[in-house]
């Protein structure tokens, strides 16, 4: 035996195997009929879609297993359209697979690299032409052109300036002021401590000044959650305790992580949970983060009652609400 290693040889393309439709004219005729039937079914499906569009009322609902209550108009319009397309596709593929030639063809492939001669010529041309333009020598032109191109890109950026106002201190302010009354959302009614039972939660907003309208961008900063616990359940320092009123504590509802509404309150554990990224805040400890990606507690709003017995803010929030931003100082 020789020591030369011999790999398994390529036996070449396997011989073409005739299909039934190639050899039996009857089978070919049958395939033709099958294709035609598929196309006819497609046309019938289109008729179903048009019938559903015009004649089936969109008020008819009926029950289907798995799908539940189903709208007849929507269902038959959709099915008609779907099958009219599907049958065309199936017909075409059936036609191609059974009646069109199925002999594999070999096409040659050529290496992309040009012959060395052409390559060298090309490289030489590029070098010569670049040299003729003086790209290598005239560096002043190169540099000033670079400057001009770079500078011209500034115009479109500058033009985008008026997309919006500068943020200024906007992200740090809310509508809450000293003495602002808390009003229910929805309803805009003032709220009194006795309206909230122990264990209850309410969403409130600052009362609107007369003649003002409430915008969504106000709500995005002003939304506050009121929660009432037994005063003994708090584990707060004296200052934070003085921000509560008779067991009622108020937090910004806008998550300190990415700004979703922190809407899930678990009464048993007294945890607030943000449904977006599951940051969890402990209500009894001034919304301290106990789980999840949020890095800061929810800002607490100091509240008290006014002379009419309505809940009011003692003063504005002492820190920006919502997600972090570069200029935020803590």
């Amino acid at each position, binding site marked *: 035996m020789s020591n030369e290693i011999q790999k398994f040889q390529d036996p070449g393309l396997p011989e073409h195997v005739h299909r039934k439709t190639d050899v039996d004219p009857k089978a070919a005729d049958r395939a033709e009929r099958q294709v035609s039937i598929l196309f006819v079914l497609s046309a019938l499906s289109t008729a179903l879609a048009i019938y559903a569009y015009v004649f089936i009322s969109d008020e008819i609902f009926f029950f289907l297993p798995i799908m539940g209550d189903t709208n007849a108009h929507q269902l038959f319009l959709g099915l008609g359209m*779907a099958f009219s397309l599907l049958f065309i596709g199936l017909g075409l593929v059936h036609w191609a697979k059974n009646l069109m030639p199925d002999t594999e063809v070999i096409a040659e492939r050529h290496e992309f690299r040009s012959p060395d001669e052409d390559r060298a010529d090309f490289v030489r041309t590029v070098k010569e032409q670049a040299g003729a333009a003086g790209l290598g020598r005239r560096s002043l032109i190169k540099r000033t052109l670079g400057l001009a191109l770079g500078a011209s890109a500034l115009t479109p950026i500058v033009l985008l300036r008026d997309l919006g106002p500068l943020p200024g201190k906007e992200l740090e302010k809310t509508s809450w002021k000293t003495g602002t009354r808390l009003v229910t959302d929805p309803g805009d009614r003032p709220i009194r401590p006795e309206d909230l039972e122990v264990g209850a939660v309410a969403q409130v907003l600052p009362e609107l000044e007369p003649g003002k309208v409430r915008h969504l961008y106000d709500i995005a900063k002003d939304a506050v959650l009121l929660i009432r616990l037994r005063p003994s359940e708090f584990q707060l320092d004296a200052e934070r305790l003085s921000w509560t009123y008779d067991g009622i504590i108020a937090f910004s509802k806008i998550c300190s992580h990415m700004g979703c509404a922190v809407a899930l309150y678990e009464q048993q554990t007294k945890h607030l949970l943000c449904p977006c990224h599951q940051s969890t805040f402990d209500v009894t400890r001034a919304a301290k983060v106990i789980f999840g990606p949020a890095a800061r507690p929810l800002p607490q709003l100091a509240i008290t009652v006014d002379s009419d017995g309505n809940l009011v803010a003692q003063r504005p929030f002492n820190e920006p609400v919502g997600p972090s931003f570069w200029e935020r100082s803590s």
Partner: protein
Amino acid sequence: MKKAERIGGNVASYVDDRTGAAKWLRKNLTKVFPDHWSFMLGEIVLYSFVILLLSGTFLTFWFDPSQREVVYEGSYEPLQDIKMSAAYASALHISFDVRGGLLMRQIHHWSALLFMAGMIAHLMRVFFTGAFRKPREANWLIGVGLVTLGIVEGFLGYSLPDDLLSGTGVRIAEAIIQALPVVGSYLAFFAFGGAFPGEAFIPRIYTVHVLLLPAAFLALITIHLMLVWYQKHTQYPGPGRTEKNVVGYPLMPIYMAKAGGFFFIVFGVTALLGALASINPIWLYGPYNPGQVSAGSQPDFYMGWLDGLVRMFPPLESYVLGYTISWNILIPGLIIPGILFTLMALYPFIESWMTGDKSEHHLLDRPRNNPNRTAIGAMSLSFVLVTLINGGNDLLATHFDLTINQIMWFSRIGVIVIPPLVFVITKRICLSLQRADREKVLHGRETGRLVMLPHGEFVEIHEELTPAEKFTLTQHLQPKALVVPDTDANGVKNPQGIKGKIRARFSQAHVEQIPAPTESEAKALGSGHH
């Protein structure tokens, strides 16, 4: 047949009289494409794109991309007399008061999901078979660009209806912009025309969604296809298939019929989904209000892994000289995805650097025959899969009676531990499959037929493979590892430095293979008595 031929001849002459393209057209109409089911994944993406253009155009006839406040007066009773944006109201109008509107909305959303899923599957096919190798690096880059744009386009698309769910997604996007160091709050105010949510964002992303990005897709897809056409399609190895040819069927008529038919099938399946499977029922969520949110808020799947990363990241924030850096947003939201996509885009160049392979490849690899690459791919997928699982942690918790904490800790540890494990296991599996191939070639296929020999011994009959099968299982390349010379010609020690050493180490890992059996070995073993 006579008549058809005459018409065909007339059409061909008509075209050639006016373009002189007879030669070019003849060559291209009979262009050969290889046949394999996995080559249809990219087709699905192309057809979904066409479906998206058609269904999307239909939706624009009624959609009003405005955040101006209106009072809903349409036929969906639970939301009547409620204040909402014109965008949401018109999306409801399309769903309830335009016949076929809901169907088209659902077709549009389903085909968007199919578009993304198809792209990811196509990308995996190209990766695991090594189709990205020279000369197709540019098409790989375009593909990575398309996936990236697809994620953005999908996000903008489902943000348009301005419902409570999508508004929450936009809020999160705003928080990511706002978290950028130095320029964050400025960019956020520019993007939203002031404080979030403002009234400018939906109209602006509408232009991007229906004009800017579709134009970019169209341009990139065109180049992508022109390159496929010009460079000719890759093919799987097999008898008669070489680096120098393409074996398959001609475009006309086979692929015209097959691909055309497949377009109708994809459209039909999408329409079937639109008719039967409800998706994004915006009327159940209500209009967006920044003070509200719904439980179980979930993005579409191609955003889910990003959301999962954000969910699992520890609460890190730095306060430096009175400024805030939110690592808990920047790292999972921008830095990690940025690194992943950059590595993915550069992979063809990284692999060619590791292996030192600069030659053209038109024959695809079977994934098992390139264990290192397959393991890298599986590792990356497992990373994304863990983050995707965490992106649905709230739903998993409620469906499988787990706690969020359990899933979160599983993901936090898993995202670090599982990918390396998957790498090692995948590589071992690939090598074992190579061993199995080797066995099969040398000893034949196990038939399960036991025969008792005259002296009482039982043997299993092994069936010898056909020459075609033997060739297919042994034709793959078995490159050698790069060797770093200890000293160069001038006697300088380790001339390539540490870089050369690292490269040699990578190259060594990359060529790890079971030697393919050869005819000589088979002959040495004799035939069939094992």
